[in-house]
């Protein structure tokens, strides 16, 4: 399956990415290609640079060396390029980052209305469909603070989808959730993967990785240690670091 995808033009291309926080070398020569409709799960210990890596892709962090090309556009200091790339990429955060002063409906329709200049009515129609897709259409008029964590994260997913992105980035989407609520969020993500969305997911949910991922990447100390299909990863890991990591979390 992944061999088939490799023949296509990659939607994300990273070449020799390097990044420092002050003197701390966070990303070291990271090179990676992501094919359209591919689900890439990124795992690794904390501080390994996996979050920083996906935040570089929509330029919430700036890389200092190397090249990132998203859908044919290279990330540079050009503001127009950044805006173009960000509107192609949806992002879901660990802490949801919903706008607490707006209702669920307003959270979802805000960017389409003010960035994409959609009419209010159109945007609300789309938002309602998305809320149905994530399973909480009845919460549209509530404020984020009135929802449970799982519901909030599903709203965050709907909010990102409302911009009709080609790529979705997930930065530990279930880490801040109560165990009872993790499943409802993972279910939405699974459905999204099945619908053909290109997804980069930073997570510790190995079950999800095994079931949904096309490829899994293990980050450690700012570099890619091992990359492969779930089958390869869970049954026949090569690198010592991978074996150690898996032995500790499984």
């Amino acid at each position, binding site marked *: 399956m992944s061999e088939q995808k490799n023949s296509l033009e990659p939607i994300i291309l990273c070449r020799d990415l390097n990044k420092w926080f002050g003197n701390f070398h966070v990303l070291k020569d990271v090179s990676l290609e992501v094919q359209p409709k591919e689900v890439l799960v990124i795992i690794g210990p904390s501080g390994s640079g996996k979050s920083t890596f996906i935040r570089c892709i*929509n330029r*919430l962090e700036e890389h200092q060396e190397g090249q990132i090309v998203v859908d044919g556009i290279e990330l540079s200091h050009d503001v127009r390029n950044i*805006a173009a790339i*960000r*509107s192609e*990429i*949806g*992002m879901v*955060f660990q*802490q949801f*980052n*919903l*706008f*607490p*002063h*707006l*209702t669920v409906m307003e959270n979802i329709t*805000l*960017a389409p209305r*003010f*960035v994409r200049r959609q009419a209010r009515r159109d945007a609300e129609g789309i938002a309602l469909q998305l809320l149905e897709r994530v399973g909480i259409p009845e919460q549209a008029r509530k*404020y*984020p*603070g*009135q929802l449970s964590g799982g519901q909030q994260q599903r709203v965050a997913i709907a*909010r*990102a989808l409302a*911009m009709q992105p080609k790529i979705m980035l997930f930065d530990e989407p279930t880490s801040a959730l109560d165990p009872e609520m993790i499943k409802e969020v993972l279910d939405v993500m699974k459905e999204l993967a099945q619908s053909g969305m290109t997804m980069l997911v930073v997570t510790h949910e190995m079950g999800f990785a095994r079931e949904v991922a096309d490829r899994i990447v293990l980050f450690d100390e700012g570099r890619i240690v091992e990359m492969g299909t779930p089958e390869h990863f869970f049954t026949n890991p090569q690198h010592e670091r991978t074996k150690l990591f898996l032995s500790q979390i499984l």
Partner: protein
Amino acid sequence: MPGSSSDSPFYVAPLESPASRRPPVTTVGPLGWLRQNLFSSPANAIATALTMFVSGWVLWQILSWSVRSAQWGVIFNNLRLIGSGLYTPDQIWRVEWTAALLVFLLGLSTGVWGQVARRTLFAVGVILTIIVIIPLIGARIPEPRIYLLVEPQRNPSTLVFLGYKDQEVTFQIDPITDPEEASTSLAGYIENARSRTEWFTRAREARDGTLDFADHTLLLTARLLDARGTDLTVGDAPAQIISTPDDLGGKLTVKLPRDGWYMIQVVRDDTNKADNAGYAWLKVDGVELFPSQIDHVEALEDEYGLAPAPDQAVRAEQSLYRYEGTQNFAEYISLQVAPFFKNISTALFAGLALFINGALIGFLGKRERRVRRAALGGWLLAGPVILILLYGFEGSRSLPLVSTRLWGGLLLTILLTFIGIAASFPIGVLLALGRRSTLPVVKWTCTLLIETIRGVPLITILFMAKQIIPFFSPALVDIDLTIRMMIGMTLFSAAYLAENVRGGLQIIPNGQIEAARALGMNPALTMTLIVLPQALRAVIPAIMGQFISLFKDTSLVAVVGLYELVGIVDTITKGQPVYRPYQREAYIFVAIVYFVISYAMSDVSRRLESTGAGSTRRLK
């Protein structure tokens, strides 16, 4: 059963969870409440009793004073001045329309955003109705009769006043011949003593009947003069009364020919001083003393020319007056309470009707975007509309120019507050954003401005606005004092507001900004849609506190010569000796007005915090 769980390590609850019950009753009736809260321990009981005794005593003192001896005439006789200052009397309708507009907007807002503070806005509406509209209607109460004490030590005695065209002025000489009058008629004269010693002397003399005024012949001439000292005439004869012991001279009513300064001068025939040393009252009707009595008459002199200051004249503020008030309870009701309510009833009903109409329109239409926009737009437009309405146009017949120097009283207080809030809010937000800017020059400029203004007392800023602004550019000389004070207050408020807003900006988590950027919003959209709404909501209490301070600080412009609420009351009670004994009443009234408006503002702020869309309670 939980009880049996001690026997066995295993316990499984029944499938159904028990129905929720009400919490147990913890207090028993009002008596139980009293016992629990007020008399729970001996110390508490003593504290309660002591507090009740002291506060009861204070309340009783205030109440009995305000009914038995307070003379509220100082308020309701000067309602027009307190309401709108020296604003040209025949243009008062413009102030009334301003008040009407504000009351209507308040009503509309109450209806539309009622869930925020319906009760409070209603209270504010009612109170504003009373204190804004009513003073203006109240102005139609006839001015009190003025008694000028004609003393042997002053010759001639001159009363200087500002008159308007077709105003009817009546004056009369009333010699004091009855020793019995000493203890009653001269009450004001005694009250007005310049020192304690003088007061005691006069009071004793009056009590003993030895006050020296009765046993003398009085030969007095009272004349009405214009500003140049020319006699005014009735028909062909000069407008004058000659009073002798045989013929008191009667009353004379004169219609004034134009707007301007006038004098009534009383000249004593000094040919035989020994025989001519008694006292008399010059009783004047239809004259408004206030404008002529203010210490700084520049404002009026701009309009009406220089006030006359004849060599021998005693400016009225130096003369002695007495105001005939009431001192007992029955008269308190019939002379103070009844006329007040009679005179305010029209305004009260007009204001209430406006308010309720506005509230109904707002309430019925609050689901309509159009009505909500109208309410918001109404407030935005209110500022310019009110300023144009009050200022008028040069040479216009229907809206003649009314110089801002004549604006005063509660009108000026509310305008300074309203404009200060409306202008300092955007400036303060911009300064706060500027201070957080990544551009060094913008950042340093804003920081310097904020810290400079915050490091200087408001009173200094107001003096600077008065004295220094004209130095910057000759073009600025023409900006009049009222506008300069508005600028000063606005800058001061903006600097503090900027720091409050900056505090709000700092608490917005970075995740909010990242989320907005990840959705493709540019920095401007992120700021206006995501950061500012949350930051401002978080600092509502601080901002409202700032606005309340601004409202109270407007009283400082009195120091640089504007007559807002405090300034005008100060001038009324100091400048019009008639009212000099009643400063207590006047300042208590002022305090009540300030308190009511401040309290209403802070109540609205409390409700904004705890309710409404995205309130802090809902922020997670």
